[in-house]
């Protein structure tokens, strides 16, 4: 029987929050890009993986995790922008399957390209030295770096909310998701706004990657493993719903964390059982609108 003390359970719940935070950063970008452009980005996970590798590269270059933490997501965002301009843009108007197939191919190519550059064996990315220890929260001790992950996730979510709700560009983004034709008729260049949002969503995936690197290791297949969990999050939360991505991401994070505490072998499986139950009870997801994305 596992240790059932209050602090052990609290630690497990906080660990779930860390995993959930990383899933939320990914799923919200996936959902945002889908809601606006109708593109399901299969390569989202591989760009997350690229964030971790770029982080490793920049850490080696600058010897500073903080510099890597800021620059790596920008680099990944730039890769995303180049991909959108050079490839995905050609597929608008061809139906949602084609961008999904294209980004699937991109995902395969990125995994192999990374192996070619950094080798097949996984790498280790150390958390910054200042955060290597644990912090005493009163009721338990918790690794300082994990608290940073939770804090950064929260900050990014607040920032994104302020951007979408309080800025003029955010207003255009929301209007563009609802009725792109009307927004265009008002003389607004939606392509530029789409590119910005695409880059933003991809940069968030890169950020998730460099945050996850010290926790889960850096290896080429890390992205494809997590993209499947992200798809589950999006199905549970409802595609295109940002609130759904947050709630479902945290839910899945907690479910995985608590299950791996009691029955480690079930942790990978229980994610899919949650999805099956949601599909039976609420086919459109917890916060999804029926008919969207169908």
């Amino acid at each position: 029987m596992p240790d059932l003390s209050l602090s052990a359970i609290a630690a497990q719940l906080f660990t779930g929050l860390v995993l959930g935070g990383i899933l939320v950063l990914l799923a919200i970008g996936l959902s945002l890009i889908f809601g606006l452009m109708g593109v399901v980005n299969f390569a989202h996970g591989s760009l997350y993986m690229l964030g971790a590798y770029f982080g490793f590269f920049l850490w080696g270059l600058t010897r500073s995790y903080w510099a890597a933490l800021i620059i790596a997501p920008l680099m990944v965002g730039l890769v995303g922008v180049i991909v959108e301009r050079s490839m995905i843009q050609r597929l608008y108007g061809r139906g949602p399957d084609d961008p999904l197939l294209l980004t699937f191919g991109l995902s395969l190519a990125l995994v192999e390209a990374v192996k070619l550059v950094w080798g097949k064996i996984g790498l280790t990315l150390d958390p910054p030295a200042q955060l290597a220890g644990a912090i005493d929260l009163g009721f338990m001790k918790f690794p300082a770096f994990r608290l940073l992950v939770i804090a950064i996730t929260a900050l990014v979510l607040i920032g994104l909310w302020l951007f979408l709700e309080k800025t003029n560009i955010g207003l255009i983004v929301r209007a563009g998701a609802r009725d792109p034709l009307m927004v265009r008729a008002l003389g607004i260049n939606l392509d530029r706004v789409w590119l910005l949002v695409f880059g933003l969503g991809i940069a968030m995936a890169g950020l998730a990657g460099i945050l996850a690197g010290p926790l889960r290791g850096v290896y080429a297949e890390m992205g494809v493993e997590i993209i499947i969990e992200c798809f589950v999050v999006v199905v549970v939360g409802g595609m295109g719903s940002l609130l759904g991505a947050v709630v479902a991401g945290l839910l899945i994070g907690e479910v995985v964390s608590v299950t791996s505490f009691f029955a480690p072998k079930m942790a990978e499986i229980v994610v899919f059982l949650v999805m099956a139950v949601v599909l039976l009870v609420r086919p459109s997801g917890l916060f999804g609108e029926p008919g969207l994305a169908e």
Partner: protein
Amino acid sequence: MRAVFRWISEHPSVSIVAFFAILPFIVPYKALATQVLVYGLFAVGFNLLYGYTGLLSFGHAAYFGLGAYGTGITLAKLGWPSVWLALAVGIAAAGAGGAIVGFFALRRRGIYFAMLTLAFAQLLYFIAFHLSDLTGGDDGLRGIPKLTLGLFGWQISLDNPVSFHYFALFWVALAVFGLRRILDSPFGTVLAAIRENGDRAQACGYDVTRIKQLSFVFSAIFTGLAGALDALRITVVPVEALYWTTSGQAVIMTLLGGAGTFFGPFVGAGTYLVLQDRLSLIIESWPLVIGVLFMSFVLFLPKGIWGTLSPKIPGVSTRDSS
């Protein structure tokens, strides 16, 4: 020449069987011919759902793996030394899996379908991974015997690569004739109607969800047969048979060859496997080349090799590519 092409396009099933009957004597080594045959059938199963019904599944590894494990476990663990029974178990397992996943995945249409099929396949992968007593887990299922078939007084040893090729060809021939029969039936016409416009098919009074489910089960059965034959071919079932990369192979092969065409899956499987065979000798990261090639096909040749070429061949009817 024109008459030959016309005959081929009017007798697609016979042409495929004839082609594979001589293939072992054309390719550098016979094992490649059988591999193209089995993976071609895998792509045929995927193509029925994607190319003909318009449903993009990213989880066909599930039915390939169910077919392989169903057959492999019957022979290796249960100790029933009948190839026919083992194949039947594999096909039944794949069909049942298709019915269950289809029930869930078809609750959501459109883009969700791809994600759900992928998720359910991955669930099955994790289950097989942890049920190592039954499946061999990470080491794969080993100990599938190469049996001898008794057929009308003949003794055919499946250990011989050539006789195994013709044994597999017998099954693929059945599948290909069956598929042609399905596509030419009124049911096949409704599938095309659903692919082109599901709402309109619904308005015409067809029970679209039920027909999609049926198409899903047929697709899973073809795919399961391919998996079962593959288990007999290599006498081992690696757990990767259920991994998402296996689903990806069917997607890549079908799109390279031409989705929604009758010959496309075999053309694609041949292209993929020959490329893999040649490229892996030259560079270690051959999947990078295949990934980039696949991306260029999605961007510039969405109809695939056969879908692009066949309208240009004189005498070939357009029925095949429609």
